[in-house]
C-alpha cells in the first residue's frame, strides 16, 4: 500500500508541478464547455417559406396564417409560379415551398380532403425532417379547427369533417426542445474522456522514452502496484474535472439536475477506470510518445463519434450500433443524461454500469498483461 501511495504522490507531483500542464488541465476544458456547448445545436429555429397560393381564398389565407403564427415560418417569397418558387430554394431565399392548389377552399367545404404540397430543401436531411414534422402538425391542427370548416350550406360535410381521432403530443424531459442540456452533458463526458486518456496514454511511453521506466523496473514494485499507482491519481483528477464541469452546467448554464448526482459520481467512478485503463493500455503498446499521440487521437475520436454523443446511435448503420454497445463512453453519457435530465436511478442504470465495468476489467487486465518489468 505504501508503495502505491508513493507512486500516486510521484505521479501527481509530476503532472501538477508543470505550469503549462496545470493550465492545460483547467482552462481549455472550462472554456470549451462554456463556449462549445452553445455551438452544439441542431435547432431549426426558423424556416423561410416560399408560398404558391393558387386558391387565394379566405381558407387558404387562414392556413398560411397558421404557419406564420407559430413563429417558425416566415413567408419570404410569394409567387404564383412554381418555377420561381423552386428557384428560390436554389438561391436560398426560401428553405421550403408551400403550394396550395386551386379549389382548395371548395374541396374543403365539400369535405373532399384537398392536398397541399410541401417541398423542402433537404440538403440537411435531419433539419428537413423536423420542418416536415412541424408543418404536418400545423396542417393537422388546421384540419381539426373550425377554420377548415368554411360556411357550408348543407351542414352535413361540416359534421363529417369532425375528426374521428385527435392526436396530442408531449415531449418529456425537454418540452422546449432545447439542445443545451443534452449537448453540454455530452461535451462534459467528452472532455473528461479527453483529459483522462491523454494524460495516461503518453505516461508510460514517456517514462520509457526518458529512461525512468528502467529505474522503476529495478525497484521491488509489483506490476499491479505499478498500474494502480498510475491509475489512482488520474482517477482522482478525472473526478475533479467532472466536478468542475458539473458546477459549470448547473450554475453557469442554470440547468437543473433532475436525479441524484451521487449516481453520476458512481457512474464516473466506473467509467474512469475504463477510460484510464484504455489510456494505460495504449501507453504499454506504443513505442514512442509520438505513436501514443496518434493512437490516442484515433481511439478518442472513435469513442466520441461512435458513442452517440453528438449524433444519435440509432441513426448509425447496424455494425456501428453494435460497436456503440461496447463503447464505454456511450454508457457513461447514457448515465449522465439519464440521471441529470430524466431522473434515472440505480434501477435504470444496471446495464450501463455492467457494460462499463466489463470494459474497465478488460482494458486494465490487458494493460497489466502488456506491462512487463523487463527491458524490451
Amino acid at each position, binding site marked *: 500500500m505504501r508503495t502505491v501511495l508513493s507512486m500516486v504522490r510521484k505521479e501527481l507531483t509530476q503532472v501538477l508541478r508543470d505550469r*503549462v500542464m496545470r493550465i492545460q488541465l483547467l482552462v481549455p476544458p472550462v472554456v470549451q464547455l462554456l463556449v462549445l456547448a452553445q455551438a452544439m445545436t441542431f435547432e431549426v429555429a426558423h424556416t423561410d417559406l416560399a408560398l404558391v397560393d393558387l386558391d387565394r381564398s379566405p381558407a387558404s389565407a387562414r392556413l398560411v396564417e397558421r404557419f406564420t403564427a407559430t413563429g417558425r415560418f416566415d413567408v419570404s417569397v410569394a409567387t404564383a409560379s412554381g418555377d420561381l418558387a423552386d428557384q428560390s430554394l436554389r438561391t436560398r431565399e426560401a428553405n421550403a415551398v408551400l403550394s396550395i392548389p386551386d379549389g382548395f377552399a371548395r374541396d374543403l367545404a365539400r369535405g373532399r380532403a384537398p392536398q397541399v404540397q410541401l417541398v423542402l*430543401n433537404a440538403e440537411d436531411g435531419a433539419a428537413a425532417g423536423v420542418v416536415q414534422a412541424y408543418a*404536418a402538425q400545423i396542417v393537422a391542427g388546421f384540419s381539426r379547427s373550425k377554420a377548415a370548416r368554411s360556411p357550408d350550406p348543407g351542414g352535413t360535410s361540416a359534421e363529417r369533417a369532425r375528426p374521428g381521432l385527435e392526436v396530442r403530443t408531449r415531449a418529456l424531459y425537454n418540452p422546449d426542445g432545447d439542445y443545451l442540456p443534452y449537448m453540454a452533458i455530452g461535451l462534459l463526458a467528452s472532455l473528461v474522456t479527453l483529459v483522462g486518456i491523454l494524460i495516461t496514454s503518453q505516461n508510460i511511453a514517456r517514462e520509457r522514452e526518458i529512461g525512468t521506466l528502467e529505474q522503476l523496473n529495478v525497484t521491488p514494485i509489483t506490476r499491479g502496484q505499478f498500474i494502480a499507482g498510475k491509475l489512482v491519481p488520474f482517477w482522482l483528477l478525472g473526478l475533479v474535472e467532472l466536478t468542475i464541469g458539473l458546477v459549470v452546467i448547473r450554475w453557469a448554464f442554470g440547468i437543473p439536475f433532475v436525479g441524484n448526482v451521487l449516481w453520476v459520481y458512481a457512474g464516473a467512478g466506473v467509467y474512469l477506470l475504463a477510460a484510464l485503463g484504455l489510456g494505460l493500455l495504449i501507453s504499454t503498446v506504443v513505442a514512442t510518445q509520438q505513436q501514443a499521440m496518434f493512437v490516442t487521437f484515433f481511439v478518442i475520436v472513435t469513442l466520441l463519434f461512435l458513442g452517440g454523443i453528438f449524433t444519435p446511435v440509432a441513426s448509425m448503420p447496424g455494425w456501428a450500433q453494435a460497436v456503440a454497445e461496447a463503447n464505454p463512453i456511450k454508457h457513461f453519457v447514457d448515465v449522465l443524461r439519464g440521471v441529470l435530465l430524466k431522473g434515472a436511478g440505480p434501477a435504470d442504470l444496471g446495464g450501463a454500469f455492467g457494460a462499463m465495468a466489463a470494459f474497465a476489467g478488460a482494458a486494465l487486465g490487458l494493460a497489466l498483461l502488456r506491462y512487463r518489468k523487463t527491458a524490451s
Partner: protein
Amino acid sequence: MSAFRSFVVKEARHILRDRQTLAVLLALPVLMVLLFGYAIRTDVQDVRLVVVDASRDARSESLTRALAATPALRLVGVETTAAQVEPLLRRGDADVALVLPAGFARSLARGRAEVLVVSDGANANYSQTAQGYVRTVVGRWAAEATGAPVGVRVATRMRFNPTLASENLFVPGLLAFVLTLVSALMTAISIAREKETGTMEVLLVSPLRPVQIVVGKVAPYLALAFVNAVTALAVAALVFGVPVRGSLGLLLAASGVYVLVSLALGVLISSRVPDQRTAMMGALLGLLLPTLALSGFVFPIASMPGWLQPVTNVVPATWFILIARGVMLKGVGLAVLWKELLVLCGMAVALLAVGARSLHDRLE
C-alpha cells in the same frame, strides 16, 4: 541556403526512417474517413416505439399493426398502462410511445377518440421527427379506418437530396476534420521533441534563422499531408460517392493550402510548450473539440447563437468546409470561393510567421 537544405533533408530522413509511424500517418486519414463517414449521421430511422393499449380491441390492434409495418418505426413493446411508459423512456429503451385510451374502438366510433404521443425529448430534433412519424401513421390509419375525411393532406417532397442521405452533408466536413487534426499532430511534436531530447540547443547554435527552422519542419510534412488529402478525397468520392461537380484542381489546391495551415498550427503549438506531453495535450485538447463544434462540420453555423457565429471564422476548417462543399456539391468555382481561399492563404502565412516569432522569442 545549403544549411537550410540539409536541415530539410535531415527532417525528411527522420520521417522516412520511422516506418511504423509513417505507415500510421498514411493509413489514419483513410481509415477515419471510411469509419466515420458511415457512422456520422443524423437521419432519424429505426425509432423504437411502445404502444400502450389497454383495450386490445380490433381497432387498436389494427393501428398497432399499421405502426409496426412502418419501416422507420420499430415496435419494441405493447404495454397495458400509461405508467409503464415513463420508465422505458427514462431508461432509453424506447424513443416514443403512443398511448391509446381504454375503450378505443368505442370512442373512435363516437368520433371522440383522443390518443397521446409521448417522446423522449432529450434530443430535440430526434424527438420531434419521431413524433411526426407516429402522427403521420396514425393520421393515415384514422382516415382509412373511420372513413372520415382527413381534412387537408400534405404531400412532401425532399428537394436536392431525396433519399435524405447524410453522406453529402457530413463527408466534406469529415475530410476537413481529419486532415487538420492529423496534419497538426504531425508537427505538434516536432519542436517539442527537440526540446525534450536536447537537440534544440544544437539547432539554436546553427546558422538557421527561426523562420527557416519553422519552414524546414513543415516542408517535408507538407508532402505527406498532401498525400493524405488526396487519399481522403479519393475515399470520399469513390466509397461514399460524394460528387466533385466543380474543378478538381481547385479542390486540390485548396487542400494543399489547408494542410499547410494545419501544419503551421502544429508548429506554433510545438514552439510554445516545454515538452511532448504538453504538445500532445495542447494539440488534441485545443483542436479536437473546437474543430468539431465550430467548423460547421456537424453543427450548422446558422443554428448557433448570433454572438458565436463570428467566432467560427477563426477556425481554419470553417473555410475549408465552405470550399469543399462548394466545389464538391454545388460545383462553384474560384469566382465564388476566392475569398475563402484567400483567408486560408492568409492564415498559413500568419501562423508560420507567429511560429517563427515565438521560436525567436525563445532564443533570447
